[in-house]
């Protein structure tokens, strides 16, 4: 990671990044460019460097912020109409930690509204284009962040991963993307999608950058009671054995997966073997329930978390309303995207009286099975290596009209969120047409640091 110093100023780094952001504006990566503040902050850092003062580990490093992180710099819209005009009076814990180390946000990145989606096509501001092929989707929901890193606009970008929203766009754009263990990075100040599966993570160009960011952002936060006690820096990488046992999930290695992705997996398996690691096949039959369970639990939490957007206190309010009921209906009808509404409806349905046991409770039980399935898998191997998606980045508009086809693209990512285990997308070459490919490394809970370390073996 390029950090500002006496030779390369922070202002230079930031101006370069802003320049590139503008150059690639047709990709629709940013919803907001933080020009004025970013340059001002860069100058301050340069002054401190000139004076020989101590600066942070990320001094002058330009980064892109997914537009669902709260900070007073620019509106926090989550790419949703209903949050238009909302400037946060508070700063997300993750953002505060990055900024304390001198990182400089140069812009907010596009996402599927409220992070609902796998392509950024659900953004109120329109879709972000794929870094390798502008006719294809960037992936999502953190599409803007993934492309910003893939096009080398910034050193790193933040993301959120509720069911694959970091790993999938990382895979579609050929960069590293980490979904940490649930509770590793504070969710405080990040627009909630599903409270029990939301994870804050990053896009980087190298595993070392990822490690650096995690060592800064991870940690228990009194403002988020679901954060784990500090563990990240204590998890000793040196203790890792020279030869590891890597599992390949049998259920994810069949005809439903594109041949090119299977080929990429095979290549990495051969590489690992050549490096002296042992490869084992792991059967995880319960994972077949993951997608169904996910699309019950997550919409339920989504419906609940989106209840606060009612047009009463902040953001967009429909002005056509005659009474309170009207105000709610019109504001939410005009303010949410179709995919938001779909999930709100599914969520409220599965929670409604008489259906709770049949849907939500059953999904919660399936979730327990999946947690146990992962525990069992990690009793047989150190890490798992698996595809991220059944297919590489597809064409814009190809699946947007078919929600089920779209949801099926999430089948390999969502189980990690249900189990709370970490997953790291690593670049894995390209298709014949030059489309980026990726694979995900999966580890047991709190193995994040070792997982990042091990990714170096696969480079």
């Amino acid at each position, binding site marked *: 990671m390029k950090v500002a110093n006496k030779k390369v100023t922070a202002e230079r780094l930031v101006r370069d990044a802003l320049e590139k952001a503008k150059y690639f504006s047709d990709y629709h990566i940013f919803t907001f460019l933080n020009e004025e503040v970013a340059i001002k902050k860069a100058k301050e850092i340069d002054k401190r460097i000139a004076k020989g003062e101590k600066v942070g580990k990320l001094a002058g490093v330009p980064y892109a912020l997914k537009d669902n992180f709260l900070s007073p710099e620019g509106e926090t819209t989550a790419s949703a109409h209903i949050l238009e005009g909302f400037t*946060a009076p*508070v700063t997300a814990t993750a953002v505060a930690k990055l900024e304390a180390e001198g990182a400089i946000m140069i812009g907010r990145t596009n996402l599927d509204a409220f992070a609902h989606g796998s392509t950024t096509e659900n953004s109120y501001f329109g879709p972000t284009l794929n870094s390798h092929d502008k006719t294809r989707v960037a992936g999502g929901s953190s599409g803007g962040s993934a492309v910003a890193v893939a096009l080398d606009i910034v050193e790193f970008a933040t993301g959120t991963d509720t069911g694959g929203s970091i790993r999938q766009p990382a895979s579609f754009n050929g960069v590293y993307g980490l979904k940490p263990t649930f509770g590793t990075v504070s969710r405080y100040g990040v627009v909630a999608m599903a409270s029990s599966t939301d994870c804050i993570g990053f896009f980087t160009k190298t595993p070392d950058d990822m490690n650096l960011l995690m060592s800064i952002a991870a940690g228990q936060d009194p403002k988020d*009671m*679901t954060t784990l006690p500090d563990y990240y820096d204590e998890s000793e990488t040196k203790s890792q054995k020279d030869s590891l046992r890597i599992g390949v999930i049998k259920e994810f290695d069949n005809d439903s997966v594109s041949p090119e992705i299977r080929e990429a997996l095979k290549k990495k398996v051969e590489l690992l073997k050549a490096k002296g690691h042992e490869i084992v096949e792991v059967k995880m039959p319960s994972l077949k329930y993951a997608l169904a369970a996910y699309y019950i639990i997550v919409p339920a*939490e989504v419906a609940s978390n989106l209840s*606060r957007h009612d047009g*009463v206190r902040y953001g967009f309010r429909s002005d056509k309303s005659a009474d*309170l009921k009207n105000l709610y209906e019109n504001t939410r009808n005009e303010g949410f995207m179709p995919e938001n509404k779909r999930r709100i409806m599914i969520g409220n349905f599965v929670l409604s009286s008489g259906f709770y046991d049949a849907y939500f409770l059953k999904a919660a039980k399936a979730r327990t099975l999946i947690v146990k399935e992962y525990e069992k898998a990690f009793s047989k191997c150190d890490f798992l290596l698996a595809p991220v998606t059944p297919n590489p980045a597809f064409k814009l508009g190809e699946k947007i009209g078919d929600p089920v086809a779209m949801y099926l693209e999430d089948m390999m990512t969502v189980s990690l969120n249900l189990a709370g285990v970490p997953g790291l997308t690593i670049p894995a070459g390209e298709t014949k047409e030059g489309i980026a490919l990726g694979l995900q490394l999966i580890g047991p809970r709190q193995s994040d640091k070792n997982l990042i370390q091990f990714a170096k073996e696969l480079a």
Partner: protein
Amino acid sequence: MKYYPTIGIECHVQLATKTKLFSEVDNDARGKEPNSCVSPVDYALPGMLPRLNGEAIKLAIRAGKAMNCKINAASRFDRKHYFYPDSPKGYQITQFYHPIIGPGFVELANGTKIRVEHAHLEGDAGKLTHFDTYSLVDLNRVDTPLIEIVSEPDIHSAKDAHDYCKELWRLMIFAGVSYGDLYNGNMRFDVNISLAPEGVKKLGTRVEIKNLNSFRSVERAAEYEITRQAKLLDNGEKIIQETRGWSDETGKTTAQRSKEEAKDYRYMPESDLPPLNLSAEFIEAESAKLPLMPADYRQIFGNAIPNDTLEILLDYPTLMQKIGEVGAKTFSLDLVHSRPSSRGSFTSLGQQPSRDTVSRESSGALKLIANLFASVLLAEEKSAEYLNDLPLAKDLAELAEMNEKKELSSTATKEVFLRLFDPQMKGRGAKNIAKELGLIQENDLGALEAIVDTVLAKPETKKAQDDFRAGEEKVIGFLVGQVMKESHGKANPSAVQEILRKKLA
């Protein structure tokens, strides 16, 4: 037909924590600007997460113990969804499936035990004020910690409904978990009532009267509802399961919402808060902080203090505490240990733990102080002010002793009692105050005899003396009065009478 009413009550109690249930802003919004006690969490900005207030957990444990309830080591929070501007999040954080407080009971003064089904922790809602064409929202009250106490349907009269609510109020203020200010909505009651023909076990259709804010309204609403439902049943009509509202002005309940219109709250686990797991030590440490409760005072002082006086005083925790202290002074009553260490739990319902009580014989001082509190102090205009700044127990004990030894007449006792509240006199001691005011009665028989002799020597008492000797019993009063006058009120009248009778015999 005769009907048997069955009543269950849900009571919301605002806990007296410094900060709110899920944020660090001031919980006490009394006298503050609207929307001035609201954090980004209470305001439900996106990305804000609840942070559970440990003090609320402690108060909930004490409240539970005050109701003889089991405290559940493992409890959890859930979301209850509804759209209304008083609920910024669009849901209330409550404990629907796993409440912190388990089964227990509340014992009324008449010995009736009302079982508590459970009580749970939750956040309060904001307040709306409606005007002609608009409404104003005040979120100061949002997520003030509440416990909702749900009774079993063990109540069968409007009077018991009243007494149950009042006893709950006493428990909460004695336990120090709530300010118990009903006027400001610190406690609110929902009353469920159904009627069944006498002798029929199956309960009738239930009607809920929501949001009552005084014991009197609970009683009146229950009375009204019992009569209303009985009339309907007598006419062969059906009771509709519905929610009704009560008006103090009209004295009537009116329909608000029927079961068909009932909201679907779409309960789900609150995954922003981890499950609450309390250690046995933590629960025990909090339980141990529970002071004596009304039932304890009834047990300890039931023999010493007349029932009606005691029931008046049981509305005032500070007075009962002071009486306890006087008891400890005069009888070395061990109040800490007079409370059984394991309070009657739900399982031991019906068994009375044995404890020390003050016997009737040794109770003069307590009875006196209780009476002074009930009939003198509470009648004072400044009583509310006085309640928070009571005299020292040793001064009260001294006062009681002087009264018992007849050094003070009952009038003088009252006088000195009130002087003990006087900031000028305070701390000087009852005896010194009595001396300064010249109120100590003359009990020295020799001195009294001398005064009596002086009076009897006066010509104006001659006729009275003759009349008494002639059997006119009444005139003794006149003679006693004369002696009192001569002694400037310091003589003990009964001693004077005794001497007079001897001399005139």
